[in-house]
């Protein structure tokens, strides 16, 4: 094992250098040339994707920095989708952020640079093999996001959201760190593989472990936004500028999923029985409270926030289905279904918030559900697109969301938990109600606003591709399911 092998982290090194370079270059650009910053940022994402893709296609797992960092197929697949999500977010958010003055002034390039730094943090989280690396990545991501939320300094709601996000985020990090310290105390190591080995010997004091585990799970639940640690999600989603909501509700979910796998599965698989029970409570509560509360919302961003909570319930369902008794035969299938679910969720959510930004104009947010009234008359194509995304979130075939729900339910049912599965599908029914209500608003209601919809070229094209991808990946889910499955199997085997 290498001590200072840089090759596995070329993507991260590249991101760091590029982000710093863009920060400097942007200093010398005046406001009219911000397009250059934008292009450079997208180019950076493409560059990073090339590195991660070549690592992914080699299919091997490589450790670096005394095992603090690892580069494996699961991580690379998640990174690739993070880049994609980030790129889509930036495309969707460009006009929106410009209209709101977030890209103006001398420091307007910060938006892109902070986004890249948060992405770097996510990459570090995804590739972490050490408690400290996880924390390092998490804080890099979170601090960038706190700043992004607060980017509209003159907006009271955004400032309030930033404050809330910062305080609760810091609390969550504290939880996680405290839990990790307990685990360190019990096992004497910060290295995740080493922790797993120690636990396997069965000589570790279980009471301290469980104590630490509770805090770790609570910290992760905070980051995922699972009930009862979900309070920040609706306020922050609603308060942040929509482009930033997407930066913190999109790609970071993939990174959070990755650290769940790193900590719980790779680190503490022998204690699966204990953490699965905790996840079960979180999942059941998230499904119930997320879906029921979403019904009552009139603000679309807030509704999508509650829907996120419910969707995270499904991810947790996949994560808790890995181990039955001491049998790990189902593990790769279950965790890969949760991974597939996360990717699906992110792809769909990015599009939904993208639609909100398409409808928004200078001085008008389009974030109330009523703002979508009669969209089918104003623009049938965009109404159809949003309908595809909503049906996907509801889990109706032939959309991608169905394949994801199906994969998770299959692995949960394979554990024999029939009633948990029935519970989950019944709350999907509740969920269907508020998703199809959006479809209803767009197609069945009369428009309150008849301004023709103006959509700028690149954004419209990317959104269309986003919608087509949700349908096509729903009709042909095989390749991505297989990719998740093989990546997860390799990660579990290493």
């Amino acid at each position: 094992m290498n001590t200072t092998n840089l090759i596995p982290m070329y993507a991260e090194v590249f991101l760091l250098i590029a982000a710093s370079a863009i920060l400097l270059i942007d200093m010398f650009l005046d406001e009219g040339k911000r397009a250059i910053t934008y292009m450079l940022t997208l180019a950076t994402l493409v560059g990073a994707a090339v590195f991660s893709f070549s690592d992914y296609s080699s299919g091997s797992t490589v450790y670096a920095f005394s095992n603090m960092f690892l580069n494996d197929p699961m991580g690379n697949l998640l990174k690739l989708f993070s880049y994609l999500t980030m790129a889509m977010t930036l495309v969707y958010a460009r006009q929106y952020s410009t209209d709101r003055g977030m890209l103006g002034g001398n420091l307007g390039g910060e938006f892109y640079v902070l986004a890249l730094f948060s992405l770097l943090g996510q990459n570090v989280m995804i590739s972490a093999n050490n408690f400290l690396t996880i924390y390092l990545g998490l804080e890099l991501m979170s601090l960038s996001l706190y700043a992004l939320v607060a980017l509209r300094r003159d907006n009271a709601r955004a400032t309030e959201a930033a404050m809330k996000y910062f305080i609760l985020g810091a609390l969550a990090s504290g939880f996680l760190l405290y839990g990790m310290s307990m685990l360190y105390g019990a096992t004497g190591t910060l290295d995740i593989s080493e922790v797993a080995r120690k636990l396997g010997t069965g000589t570790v004091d279980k009471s301290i472990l469980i104590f630490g585990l509770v805090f770790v799970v609570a910290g992760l639940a905070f980051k995922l936004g699972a009930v009862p640690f979900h309070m920040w999600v609706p306020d922050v989603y609603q308060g942040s500028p929509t482009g930033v909501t997407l930066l913190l509700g999109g790609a970071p979910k993939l990174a959070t999923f990755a650290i769940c796998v790193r900590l719980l599965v790779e680190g503490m698989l022998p204690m699966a029985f204990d953490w699965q029970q905790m996840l079960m409570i979180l999942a059941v509560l998230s499904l119930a409270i997320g879906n029921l509360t979403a019904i009552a919302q009139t603000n679309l961003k807030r509704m999508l926030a509650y829907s996120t909570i419910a969707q995270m319930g499904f991810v947790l369902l996949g994560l808790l289905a890995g181990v039955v008794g001491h049998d790990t035969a189902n593990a790769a299938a279950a965790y890969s279904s949760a991974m597939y679910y996360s990717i699906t969720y992110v792809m769909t959510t990015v599009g939904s918030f993208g639609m909100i930004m398409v409808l928004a104009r200078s001085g008008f947010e389009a974030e109330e559900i009523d703002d979508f009234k009669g969209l089918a008359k104003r623009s049938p194509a965009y109404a159809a697109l949003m309908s595809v995304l909503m049906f996907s979130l509801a889990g109706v075939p032939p959309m991608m969301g169905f394949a994801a729900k199906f994969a998770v339910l299959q692995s949960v049912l394979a554990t024999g938990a029939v009633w948990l599965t029935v519970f989950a599908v019944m709350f999907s029914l509740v969920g269907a109600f508020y998703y199809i209500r959006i479809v209803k608003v767009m197609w069945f209601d009369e428009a309150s606003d008849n301004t023709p919809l103006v959509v700028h070229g690149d954004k419209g094209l990317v959104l269309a591709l986003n919608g087509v991808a949700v349908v096509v990946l729903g009709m042909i889910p095989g390749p991505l399911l297989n990719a998740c499955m093989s990546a997860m199997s390799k990660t579990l085997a290493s």
Partner: protein
Amino acid sequence: MQSTTNLSTYLSLSIWVPIIFGLIVLAVGRDSRAGMVRVLSLVGSLVSLLPTIPLITHFNTEAHGMQFVEKAPWIERFNIFYSLGIDGLSMWFIPLTAFITVIVVISAWEVITERVAQYMGAFLMLSGLMIGVFSATDGLLFYFFFEATLIPMYIIIGVWGGANRIYAAFKFFLYTFFGSLLTLVAIIYLYNKSGSWDILAWHQLPLSMKEQTLIFFAFFMAFAVKVPMFPVHTWLPDVHVEAPTGGSAVLAAIMLKLGAYGFLRFSLPIAPDASREYAWFIIGLSLIAVIYIGLVALVQKDMKKLVAYSSIAHMGFVTLGFFMFNDMSVQGGIVQMVSHGFISGAMFLCIGVLYDRMHSRQIADYGGVVNKMPKFAALFILFSMANCGLPATSGFVGEFMVILGAVKFNFVTGIAAATALIFGAAYSLWMAKRVIFGAITNPHVEELTDVNNREFLMLGILAIAVLVMGLYPAPFTDVMQVSVADLLAHVAQTKLPVVAH
């Protein structure tokens, strides 16, 4: 990917041709070129009808098992195949679906003036999806099509429906989604147990009584809602009243059959022991449907509601037939499904014809229509007669077979089922009398004009279908004989695992 014969692409064509035409219509359609959209849709529906014809002509009535089989890997991770096939149970529904779609396109010709392309496109895609349901032999593929039909129907009801359309659209979506989610759990369970999605393999899978019972009721929830059976029928009248004419016709003619077909393909053969054990339950609900709902239909003031309740009663005959487990009754049930497809479709189209002129569905607003619309009156009376099962119409064949089967099964059941015919006659003919005959009391009726060529064409074709099927039902019953016999032989055997003593 292996194709056994060159016949094997007709099912795929039947599914995908209308869907692709639907997408084309959606893509090119603007209300400013509505005429072109109508022609294109008609061409699309006619072209979609073509590949279903060889299914009739090349169908081997002697053969056991599936015909026109297609199989290709779809989602290898879960061993899911894109596999299609039809047997005697499903064969007729595919041409029926494509045929009704043609009629629906014709029926919408001048009636739908707003968002024409979306209306036509939705129906074309719906047609392909429903054919997919009837021809899928892979459990997940079936579910995929079964659920996907909700999307176009939801939009159709919500956009072109009546005043209370939004309530109806939600009720439709959520009721059916509820049932099918439980079915999803059941089919995933079957996959986890068998490692296969092949419905025919599930037929052979041994299951304990407890498993069969749970699976039976999970399927029951989906299919009973779709049929719909008492007491989960309440969505249907609401939806029918609000849906546009074409929506009502497709809903009654085809969509309800998806549920009944599900009983034949899933419930009976996969959980035969539970099916026999709980047959009394289904028979009881079916009898309630035919008698009680028949009485409810009698007192309706709204024509569409009346026909909707009559649909529930007729579908009660279908489920009644299925769960008496004899050749006559099961065949009768399937014949009834096909025949009801023609008749209910025609009834809704007739009401649509009246509604387009008067903008009222209230029976009380009519009376003496025969004086102004003689051609229409003749057709309307024919369909009403067929609806109450007059011999020489298709309605008679199915009901008569089910009643014969019921008498064979249990005399009291037979009597109860036969009573329903009286109610059927009562509500159908009473409505016909109040609408068509009598003196003209409403001045608006004075202004009615008779059916135009387009309306005459669509109703005429349906009238011919109803009469042909009533006079010469042999082609319909011949097709299903072997499959029904196989099904019954299969259901008669227990699937319970052998317990070692």
